[in-house]
């Protein structure tokens, strides 16, 4: 019995560990997408944040400065995305793709130039440089994990119970109505994009200074896309997206455990199949095989005043 409890606890802890960056990114992505701006660039923002968080933490010796730097880096990318999509009404998908590619290259270029370790940042050792677990030493529950958990009800509350949230939802459905009501569409969307950057920054900082002890090239490994999948799978709603993140996190945690294990009736489950499951599941959802996912009506369409 004890063993089962331990396994469950460890699995749960592993799930949370993996899900934390997903949840943070998903909440950020939610704000952006509900306001009508597609955000394919979550991956890139997270990567930039991870790099700068680890780099600054290593250089200054302070994990908090690292977190701040990570957020700043992600916000920089977010502003770029906002500028391209909102002010210049550019193609939002292209902008996101560009940011991902830019981040992938820039983090290694800067990393090599500054630390000469082939893209890695120095390992963070002394206690000030990392974020440590708070209650359960083996479970890795550092402050960012709790932040991620808190971000879900916070996001829900902001979107559903505040004036800003009402306007945000409105601008994602019909920016024309918002404009006619005398509210600035651009400013609303910029705020959404900046909030997204904030969360993506936290997620990236978590990766490099909490979950791990340094930055390595491409360390986000597609998690930004899984977060996007979770947003869609969760039908653009905070708690559902959170559930999706947990599900995808669980899949990842289980994948390692299942490697080499023969499941009765199926045989050995290829780890790659489990890795691909979040994407396959999202595609099933998009195909309408598991319910319908209705996106905010005005998503992806740059808002042009008619004059």
């Amino acid at each position, binding site marked *: 019995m004890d063993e089962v409890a331990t396994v469950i606890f460890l699995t749960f802890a592993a799930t949370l560990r993996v899900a934390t960056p997903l949840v943070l990114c998903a909440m950020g992505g939610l704000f952006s997408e509900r306001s009508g701006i597609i955000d394919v660039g979550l991956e890139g923002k997270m990567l930039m944040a991870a790099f700068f968080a680890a780099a600054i933490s290593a250089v200054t010796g302070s994990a908090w400065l690292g977190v701040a730097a990570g957020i700043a880096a992600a916000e920089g990318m977010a502003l770029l995305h906002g500028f391209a999509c909102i002010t210049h009404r550019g193609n939002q998908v292209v902008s996101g793709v560009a940011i991902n590619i830019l981040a992938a*290259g820039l983090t290694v270029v800067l990393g090599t130039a500054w630390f000469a370790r082939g893209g890695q940042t120095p390992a963070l050792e002394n206690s000030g440089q990392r974020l440590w677990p708070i209650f359960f030493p083996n479970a890795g529950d550092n402050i960012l994990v709790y932040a991620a958990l808190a971000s879900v009800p916070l996001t829900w509350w902001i979107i559903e119970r505040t004036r800003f949230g009402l306007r945000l939802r409105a601008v994602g459905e019909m920016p024309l109505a918002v404009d006619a009501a005398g509210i600035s569409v651009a400013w609303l969307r910029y705020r959404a994009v900046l909030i997204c950057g904030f969360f993506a920054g936290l997620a990236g900082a978590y990766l490099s200074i909490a979950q791990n002890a340094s930055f390595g090239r491409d360390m986000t490994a597609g998690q930004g896309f899984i977060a996007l999948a979770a947003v869609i799978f969760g039908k653009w709603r905070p708690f559902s997206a959170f559930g999706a993140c947990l599900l995808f996190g669980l899949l990842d945690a289980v994948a390692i455990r299942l490697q080499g294990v023969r499941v009765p009736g199926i045989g050995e489950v290829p780890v790659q199949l489990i890795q691909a499951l979040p*994407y396959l599941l999202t595609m099933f959802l*998009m195909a309408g095989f598991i319910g319908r996912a209705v996106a905010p009506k005005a998503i992806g369409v740059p808002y042009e005043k008619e004059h």
Partner: protein
Amino acid sequence: MRAPRRPLPAWADVALLPLVNIALAFVIVGIIVRLIGVDPFHALRLLVVGALGSSESIGYTLYYTTNFIFTGLAVAVAFHGGLFNIGGEGQAYLGGLGCGLAMLAFDRYLPAPILIPLGIAAAALFGAAWAAVPAWLQAWRGSHIVITTIMFNFVASALMVYLMVNVLIAPGSMTPQSRNFTAAAKIPAMHDVLAAVGIQVAPSALNLSIVLALLCCVGVWIFLWHTSWGYALRTMGHNPDAAVYAGTNLKTMTMLAMCLSGALAGFVGVNELMGVHQRIVLDFPAGYGFAGIAVALMGRSHPLGIVLAALLFGALQQGGAELAFDIPLITREMVVVIQGLVILFSGALAHLPRPWLQLLLSRRVS
């Protein structure tokens, strides 16, 4: 209040604007290079020389260009149908798989003149099939093709890793790659072909796939502007309601556009596996799929523009590699940065220079 975008004269829109966009990207890269402590102009010189300075570098430049042409055409064909195909990476991967499987199955039994077209056909088939699934989902279930193609890239990656590690790995090999193809499964290298007619050039990865690429350019041009199907496709891209009115079946046309697109992306596999590696390897799509978006955008989705844009990207790739070799402080990833910036400027920020260009041009007129 923003003034409406007044159209620039055609030549400025098609030629000048893209050049300005590239220039802006280079300026930013120059700043980054300076920040790292390297002289940007020195780096630029090394880049240019690295790309075009010798017959070997030109060869490699053109070899990279081949892939960019394939993925650029792929994105462009889909664009003309109003579809955003971001799945070029996955489609290229599967195209290579198809080509490779055909080789592994038949390369001991068939001669090159049959094997090569077979490989090309298999690449097209597999690439098209991988694009067909998101296409079907868009056409019949209304699923946003951007999301499904991105997801499918990841699925392709997982699939390929699984196959390479568990199924196709060459016996006794430590790395995930298949056995080598026989000599019949090789697309002749350009330097060999030229040598056969008496022209000596340094060996490079450039092979006759570039001929396939150029043929595809011509084929796409004819298809889009000189066939009734291309007309229907373009109608759908501009105005789906008008396409329905005109009797076009949107679902069928979506499938056609995406399958063509997937097939074109799949040809990257032909270049890589039959032209260079001579076996199935992992990670050969290497970002060509995404770069194809930039190529299509810069080339205004027209084959001629795509060739020019592909040349630029090919030169960047080769020059960047040489640059990283010469200046260790600048890694290969600098090319990635440049690519990202070019995509940003020619895609999302394409209209940024417009007001200044308009100002400039109107002053010259008055």
